[in-house]
């Protein structure tokens, strides 16, 4: 009897010790998982942040500010801002109805149309550039006829915008399509039964509800346009003041003056940052106003 009790006590002690070991090993596993995730996060952030920080560290402030007055920098800056803004406007005007139709309606060839819209995302920009050239260039299948009327698109500022629209439109349309899909059909139906036409419903109900997504899609398209390089250099060439956007100017300046190149790079980073902050603030304010 006594020996049985001792055995039970012994077993009890053993199992509690065993439980303690299991709980310690669980804790160690938990801690090592958290540490592993934290290390991964730090590594990823460092990988993204380090090159950006290096840009600022490698370019002395006085030289960077001095390069701001370089005609090449000023030309590239104004051309990039002008073309990217126009591109975003074109993409939004053209892409919004397309995205809405794609989100709400089924029609013959929809799969093909959707795939075609997404194609430029996968297509290498250089391929996009050469494709635009053989379509709209002087000897291109459309450009050939335009040339007969004295209209030449390739190697002009219009070509820069066309290249940017080609590569950046899917970024807007995809985001806008998702935003429209997320708008509950019941809102649309409710508006219609309350007397609103399709157009009124679109502008006063669907568009405001989807607005956040549309704005973020437009930012993506603007940012993609600002950074566009491959298609632009193939289709529009690299002419200062006419087709030389900032990425092209960075590439050109790297052959000679690295300071100019760094200055342009820093401006691009700054613009990207300002655009993100500005739009986020605007969106927040817009929603605050709507709430009041």
């Amino acid at each position, binding site marked *: 009897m006594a020996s049985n009790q001792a055995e039970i006590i012994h077993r009890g002690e053993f199992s509690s010790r065993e439980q303690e070991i299991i709980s310690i090993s669980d804790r160690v596993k938990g801690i090592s998982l958290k540490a592993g995730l934290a290390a991964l996060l730090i590594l990823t952030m460092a990988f993204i942040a380090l090159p950006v920080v290096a840009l600022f560290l490698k370019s002395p402030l006085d030289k960077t500010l001095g390069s701001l007055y370089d005609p090449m920098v000023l030309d590239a800056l104004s051309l990039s801002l002008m073309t990217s803004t126009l591109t975003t406007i074109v993409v939004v005007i053209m892409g919004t109805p397309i995205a809405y139709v794609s989100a709400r309606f089924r029609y013959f060839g929809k799969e093909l149309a959707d795939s075609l819209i997404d194609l430029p995302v996968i297509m290498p920009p250089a391929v996009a550039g050469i494709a635009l050239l053989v379509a709209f260039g002087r000897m291109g299948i459309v450009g050939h006829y335009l040339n007969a009327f004295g209209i030449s698109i390739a190697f002009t500022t219009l070509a820069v915008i066309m290249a940017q629209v080609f590569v950046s439109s899917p970024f807007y349309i995809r985001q806008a399509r998702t935003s429209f899909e997320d708008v*509950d059909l*019941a*809102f649309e*139906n409710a508006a219609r*039964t*309350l*007397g609103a036409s399709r157009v009124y419903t679109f502008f006063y109900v669907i568009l405001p*509800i989807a607005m956040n997504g549309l704005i973020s899609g437009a930012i993506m398209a603007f940012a993609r346009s600002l950074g566009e390089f491959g298609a632009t250099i193939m289709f529009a060439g690299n002419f200062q003041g006419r087709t030389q956007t900032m990425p092209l100017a960075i590439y050109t300046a790297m052959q000679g003056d690295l300071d100019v190149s760094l200055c342009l790079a820093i401006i691009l980073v700054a613009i990207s940052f300002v655009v993100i902050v500005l739009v986020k603030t605007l969106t927040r304010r817009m929603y605050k106003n709507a709430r009041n």
Partner: protein
Amino acid sequence: MLEIDVKKRLRDFDLQVKLDVARGKTLMLVGDNGCGKTTLLNLLAGLADPDEGRISLDGRALYDSESGTNLPPEARGIGYVFQSYALFPHMSIYDNVAFGLRTRRMAAGEIKVLVKEHLEAAGLWEIRKAKAADVSGGQKQRIALARALIIEPRLLLLDEPLSALDVRKQAAMRKELGETIHACGVPCLIVTHDLRDVACMGDQACLLERGKIALHGGAEEILSWGSGMDARGE
């Protein structure tokens, strides 16, 4: 008077309904999920098209496959309270209720008077500036009803109007809703799963089974059918 005689092919069966609802009367539509209740409301509202048949309201055809008449939802003058209430999330309560009047290009002063009247009657005037997302379920239901009633509809459609509320609120809202609907004096169709709704609000009731009317009569008839069910509702 609402007269319905429609047919529509659904995925698994045909929806085939023929019934009338007189002015000031409430018809309760009951039936299993997917039996075609909400589709019938959508056909009446013009949100979906029947394959054939006729829908007329006070003698005017809303849909007639023979003459090719098919009025769009905005021209039907129907008040529809959706199951989710579908209150516009980007608008205040005031703007939600004023929406139907604004689409009719009514003067701002007139809109204010009417919206105030409806919101005060529903006890919502104090919270008119709040967003629809920030109010309780019962208030949402009142807003949706006020929004549908302010356009002075000639027909009222309610899709499970109490299902989003908790049980305690349902009892109070059921009585209130019944009184409001009867005061309107227009034909009304209410989709429900709850036989207490039938007892409290219905003048007549209709049991739909796989798109066909299985039982149609006074609300009491459906209630007596319901009392024959066992505890599991079978």
